[in-house]
C-alpha cells in the first residue's frame, strides 16, 4: 500500500469519528484569515451550481459536445459491466413556452404532461404525485479555455423528481418508491456526464435482473446497491418513448419493484 492510498483510505473512516472531531473542536477555526472578497458573488455561484448539478444528476451517460439526433443511456453494473438502456434515444421536443425556471410548486404527472406536451408513464400504485420540475437551460457557451459564459437560451434538459410517489401504507415511513424522469430536448448542445453511485453506496451497483415489461414492450434494468445504512437500494431504470426513468425503491424487495413496474402505463 502506498501512502497516497492510505491517505485515500483515511477519507473513508467511519462517519462517527468525523462528526466527533467536528463537535469536539471547531474545525473551521482559522477561517477568519481567509479573505472573503468574493462574498457578493456567492449567491450567483450557488444558483449556477444548482443548475449545473441537474446536468449531472442522471445515471445515464451522454457524450460531451454538441448533440446529434440521438443519445445513449447506459449504466455500469457489477463493477465494470455496461448495460445499455437505449442506444438511439431521440431528442424530444417540448412546448416552447415550458418554464425556463425551476418551479417550487409541485406538479402532478398530468400537469407535467400538459406543461411539456409529452406523455409520461404513471401507475395506479402511485398515491402521491408531487413532482418538482427542474429545467437545465442552455445558459452558457463553452469558451476555448473551458470557462462557461453566456445568457439563458433554450431548455436542454428537463428533470422531474417525484419523491415517494408510491408509499406503502401498511409499512413504516421508509418503504417507498421515488421516480426520476429525465428528457433531453432537441435544443440540447451541452453534455451529461456519467454519474457515480451515491457516496452512501457501500458497494457496486449489482445487476439483479432485466425485466421485460410487456405492457410497454421495453425492458427495465433492476439493480441492487448496498448502502451505508444497511438497507439495499433497489433501482429500476428504463427508457420509454425517448424519456429516461429511474425508479428508486427504499426498503423494498426486487419482487415489489417488479410488481410496480408491471403497473406502469
Amino acid at each position, binding site marked *: *500500500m*502506498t*501512502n*497516497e*492510498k*492510505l*491517505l*485515500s*483510505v*483515511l*477519507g*473513508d*473512516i*467511519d*462517519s*462517527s*469519528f*468525523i*462528526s*466527533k*472531531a*467536528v463537535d*469536539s*473542536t*471547531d*474545525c*473551521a477555526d*482559522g*477561517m477568519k484569515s*481567509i479573505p472573503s472578497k*468574493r462574498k457578493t458573488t*456567492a449567491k450567483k*455561484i*450557488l444558483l449556477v*451550481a*444548482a443548475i*449545473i*448539478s441537474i446536468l*449531472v*444528476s442522471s445515471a445515464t451517460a451522454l457524450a460531451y459536445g454538441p448533440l446529434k439526433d440521438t443519445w445513449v443511456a447506459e449504466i455500469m453494473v457489477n463493477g465494470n459491466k455496461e448495460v445499455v438502456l437505449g442506444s438511439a434515444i431521440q431528442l424530444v421536443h417540448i412546448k416552447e413556452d415550458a418554464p425556463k425556471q*425551476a418551479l417550487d410548486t409541485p406538479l402532478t404527472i398530468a400537469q407535467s404532461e400538459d406543461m411539456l406536451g409529452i406523455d409520461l408513464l404513471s401507475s395506479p400504485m402511485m398515491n402521491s404525485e*408531487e413532482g*418538482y420540475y*427542474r429545467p437545465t437551460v442552455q445558459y452558457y457557451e463553452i469558451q476555448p479555455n473551458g470557462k462557461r459564459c453566456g445568457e439563458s437560451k433554450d431548455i436542454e434538459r428537463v*428533470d422531474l*423528481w417525484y*419523491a415517494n410517489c408510491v408509499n406503502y401504507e401498511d409499512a413504516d415511513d421508509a418503504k417507498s418508491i*421515488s421516480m426520476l424522469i429525465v428528457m433531453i430536448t432537441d435544443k440540447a448542445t451541452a453534455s451529461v456526464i456519467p*454519474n457515480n453511485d*451515491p*457516496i*452512501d*453506496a457501500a458497494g457496486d451497483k449489482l445487476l439483479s435482473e432485466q425485466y421485460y415489461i410487456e405492457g410497454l414492450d421495453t425492458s427495465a434494468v433492476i439493480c441492487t446497491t448496498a*448502502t*451505508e*445504512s444497511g438497507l439495499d*437500494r433497489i*433501482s429500476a431504470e428504463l427508457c420509454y418513448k425517448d424519456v429516461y426513468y429511474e425508479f*428508486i425503491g*427504499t426498503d423494498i424487495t426486487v419482487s415489489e419493484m417488479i410488481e410496480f413496474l408491471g403497473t406502469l402505463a
Partner: protein
Amino acid sequence: MEDDKIIELFFSRSEDAIKELNAKYGRLLKSISANLLSSEQDIEECVNDTLMNVWTEIPPAKPDNLTAFVCKISRHIAINRYKHLHRKKRCGEMDLLLCELDECIPSNENISRELEDKQTLELIDKWLADLDDEIQTLFVRRYFFMDSVLKLSEAFSISQSNVSTKLYRARKNLKSYLSKEDLAI
C-alpha cells in the same frame, strides 16, 4: 436548520437546500479546502463543487450523518484539486502529509499488498475507536481534515512540538497495529 430538514429540502429538490447547507456547513467546507489550497478562488470553487456534489448525491443518498457526508465529499474534491494543481511539482501540505503517512505503512509489502482497502479501513476504524479521545481527534483532524500542526496546536492549546510528538506516536502505533493485524491475516 437541523440536518434532517436540510435533507428533506434536497429530497424535494428545493434550491433552498443548497443555501441552507452552505449556511450551516459553508465555513467548515471552506476550512477543509483551505487546509490544502492557498488560492481563494480554488477554495471557493471547491466549496461550490462540494455543494453541487451533495445536490447530485441526495437523493437518492439519504445520509445518516450529514456532517461526515459533506466533509468526505469536500475532502475528496480538495485532494483532487490539489493533485490537479500540483501535477508537476511536489510541494505543500499534502506532500508533507504523505511523508508522515509513510511511517504508518508496514514494511512487509507482500503482505500489506494483499490487504484490500476495505479491510484496511476496517482496521483503521477499529484502531481509531480504541484511541484516547484527544489523540483520536488530533489524528482525524490531521489526516482527515488535513489541518496544519500550527492550527492543531492553537485548537488544542498545546505546543506545536507536542502536537507533532503525539501524532508521531500515533503513526508509530498505527504502523505497529497494522503490521500485527497484517501478520494475523
